[in-house]
């Protein structure tokens, strides 16, 4: 058994998928070079107003209710990809018959999805979830299913052996629906005209014609058309392996200047992406947002403008920027030199599939890194990944929910800075600053902690800690016999006084083979400041000179 999914009025469907609020409005799509733009597709509401696809754009503009949209190859590509995703969520054998039509082999799928009627209904529902209104038909051969899907609205199930009977009422034009442009369209128009002259208006009449006579007049093409009309054109499916590319895009007529409408559009794109990923039982671990910016002042793209302010203050209205677009060569926002693209990459610690979380993360990221110029096009790409599978345990300690945690971390990073929040990773060095911050992931650390004997664990815990001053405090040190006797620190009044006791010097050095070589003497000392006694680490920088109080033992 084969199924066909067909999207009628594909250009309109692509536009409506991008703007779902237009579903109950008259919509027309135009194409061509100004001023010769013509309508190429209209929906039912527009037809009721007398709008036809032959009209020019100027004529259509006279109708104030009509929503006129330019044809968008980007949106059509996304819609086609969504159609393929819909088909591939039911069967691995999918033929990409046309931009608006896919065929799929349902052999053996009944055991997974139920009866054929259930499968048809499920396909239709899945298409609706992806923002598409599809005709679904099943038949014993691919071409019969294809004709039924193109000819009958909604869901059609053709039982085996009833193909000719069911397809009979369809007009002959349905045989040429895939020939919309160029030479193919001319040939198709000629054939339809010829059949019309013969009085052949539907497939039943075509199927009833004598084969030899038809062959004498129309040749092999005529016989092929008759086979199709009888629903008896056996052929094998040509399956395609659709690449796992999940990309949605919007081309804007007017540039966006504020973050709020951008968030609105991003939400729509994210919902579409998540629906597509969900239909393929996938999640994503990396989102890539590419914004094509308009270069208002026409400055050279290599102009560097690092001072684009962040408008993270909630009291202000967030602008994406109205200044000239600039180039940032940092690893954060990247503006390509030629195309004035602004690229942000959102890496997630674990695969997720929550459009709301993604939207909030993108909003926070764009607040911290505004694009700096009006936005013309938005591309959003999701890198697919297998969804995480985790099972909580009744006796395991609670852990933060990954989605919530990611949002929380992004919000905290907006407060304290990106490099100031996360987990610590010690580096393999003796340098006192030998650590770096990395992303805090609750999932990775879900492993069972090492079991230690209570004695050793407790013994390890009561370790005297050092509190560091970042940066270290410069100190004036009075020496006697090369040893510190008195400290004075201008910045911190508490850290000064007479040295009661000292231990050291402990000499550290390293990285002598690098430019940033370091060498220092460390002292542990007790200071008396009035009645209080405190313990500190004093450092003498042997290369740069100077004494510093590095921290307090606490």
């Amino acid at each position, binding site marked *: 058994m084969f199924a066909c999914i067909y999207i009628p009025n594909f250009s309109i469907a692509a536009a409506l998928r991008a703007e779902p609020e237009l579903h109950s409005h008259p919509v027309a799509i135009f194409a061509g070079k100004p001023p010769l733009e013509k309508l190429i597709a209209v929906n039912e509401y527009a037809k009721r107003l007398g709008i036809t696809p032959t009209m020019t754009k100027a004529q259509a503009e006279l109708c104030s209710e009509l929503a006129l949209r330019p044809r968008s190859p980007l949106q059509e590509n996304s819609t086609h990809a969504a159609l393929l995703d819909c088909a591939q969520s039911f069967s691995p054998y999918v033929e990409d018959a046309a931009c608006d039509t896919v065929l799929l082999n349902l052999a053996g799928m009944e055991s997974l999805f139920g009866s054929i009627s259930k499968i048809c209904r499920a396909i239709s529902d899945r298409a609706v979830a992806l923002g598409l209104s599809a005709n679904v038909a099943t038949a014993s051969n691919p071409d019969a299913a294809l004709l039924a899907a193109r000819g009958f609205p909604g869901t059609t199930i053709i039982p085996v052996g009833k193909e000719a009977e069911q397809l009979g009422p369809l007009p002959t034009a349905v045989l040429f629906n895939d020939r919309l442009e160029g030479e193919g369209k001319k040939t198709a128009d000629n054939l339809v005209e010829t059949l019309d002259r013969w009085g052949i208006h539907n497939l039943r009449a075509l199927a009833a014609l004598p084969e030899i006579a038809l062959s004498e007049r129309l040749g092999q093409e005529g016989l092929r058309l008759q086979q199709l009309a009888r629903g008896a054109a056996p052929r094998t499916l040509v399956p395609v392996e659709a690449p796992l590319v999940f990309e949605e895009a919007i081309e804007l007529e007017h540039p966006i200047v504020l973050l709020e409408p951008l968030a609105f559009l991003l939400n729509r794109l994210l919902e579409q992406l998540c629906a597509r990923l969900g239909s393929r039982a996938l999640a994503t671990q990396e989102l890539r947002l590419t914004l094509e910016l308009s270069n208002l002042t026409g400055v050279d793209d290599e102009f560097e403008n690092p001072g684009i302010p962040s408008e993270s203050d909630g009291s202000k209205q967030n602008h994406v920027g109205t200044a000239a677009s600039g180039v940032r060569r940092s690893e954060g926002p990247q503006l390509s030199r030629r195309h004035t693209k602004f690229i942000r990459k959102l890496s997630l610690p674990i695969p997720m599939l929550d459009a709301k979380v993604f939207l909030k993360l993108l909003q926070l990221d764009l607040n911290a890194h505004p694009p700096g110029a009006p936005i013309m096009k938005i591309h959003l790409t999701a890198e697919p990944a297998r969804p995480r599978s985790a099972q909580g345990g009744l006796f395991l300690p609670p852990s*933060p929910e990954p989605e919530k945690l990611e949002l929380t971390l992004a919000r*905290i990073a907006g407060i304290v*800075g990106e490099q100031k929040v996360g987990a610590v990773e010690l580096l393999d060095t003796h340098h006192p600053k030998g650590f*770096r911050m990395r992303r805090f992931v609750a999932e990775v650390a879900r492993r069972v902690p090492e079991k230690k004997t209570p004695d050793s664990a407790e013994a390890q*815990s009561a370790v005297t800690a050092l*509190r*560091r001053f970042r940066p270290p405090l410069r100190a004036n040190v009075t020496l006697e016999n090369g040893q510190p006797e008195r400290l004075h620190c201008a*910045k911190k009044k508490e850290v000064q006084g007479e040295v*009661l006791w000292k231990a050291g010097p402990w000499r550290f050095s390293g990285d002598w083979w690098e430019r940033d070589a370091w060498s220092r003497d460390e002292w542990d000392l007790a200071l008396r400041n009035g009645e209080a006694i*405190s313990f500190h680490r004093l450092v003498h920088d042997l290369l740069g000179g100077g004494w510093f109080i590095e921290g307090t033992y606490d």
Partner: protein
Amino acid sequence: MSSAVISTSAALRRPFLFEADAEPDVYCHPERSGTCVKRISRGVEGSLDDPRLASVLPASQLAIRPASEMASSGIPELDALTGGLPRGCLTEICGAASSGRTTVLLATLAAATRRGEFCAVIDANDSLDPQSMAAAGVDLDRLLWVRCGEEIASKSKSPEGGCPTPRPFRRVEIFSQKDSTIAGSKEISSRESEHRLEQVLRATDLLLESGGFGLIILDLADVPPQSARRIPLTTWFRFRRAVEHKATILLAIEQQPIAGSCSSLLLKLEPAPKNNHVVDIEPSAAKRRQSAAHAASRGFGNEKDQAPEGRKKNYSNTPTGTELSHINLFTGLEIHAELIRSRMDRKPAHSIAFETKTAWAG
């Protein structure tokens, strides 16, 4: 636990522990107390006749509040003093510099991560030392470190995922010179400290809302008390409400108590009054310290000459400058902990002492 909590618990029909012959604790004039109690008891009994309130017990009969679950602080002496740190409550640990607050903080973190919990530290002054954390046995994978400071997101220029490269002290010197030029301005330092406090409070709110952490620590140890006291009590109340009924321990480290009655446990740390910094000249420890400094080839002579075996020193008796200072070794602190307030038990304030040791002390 407050009466609001008890009401909530009652409304939620959570189990309570009762004493068998508990008397209603209602104040009345001594002469009329019997009449009052009877009248109230009759009223309560009357209301209990209502079938809708059959399962609700009057709060006046509650003799013992539901006990909080206690978790180990990682220091047995402290656990013996307090019974551990209460979950779902705010705990304050206060003390001056070098009083062992950070040691307790790291020990608590180590104990929590050993239990498999996720922990978060909101470090107001970016002063924690990762090497100390590792030495204390903290599982760094389970620790979220929020380093509050002057830098805000918009000013952040550092590359994503970049590692802070080791800087020579020359550059640090420049920073400290700049800092020292502005140090005189109290206004700037006050503004910085307010900014940090704001960051701490916002981050704490977010983490409490996020949930899932076994231990959340507010490290306000280096925040001046006059700044810390500006945190309104309503904030602490909000934190307490956010954390109750959760398995999270909210711990605040500070110089002086600031949360008032919002904290369920208040612990004061101070250096032990005498003999608190015994320095033990232990050859193996000295060797480790030298080895860590890989200084044997640069500037140190014969170890035996510097670290005579079995010799003990007290700093107060050491004539400074008369002998080589690197024969001394800082081995740890002796800490005196006093229990100021605890909601968990009504014991009078008492105290203990415990010792800490440095990572190289063995």
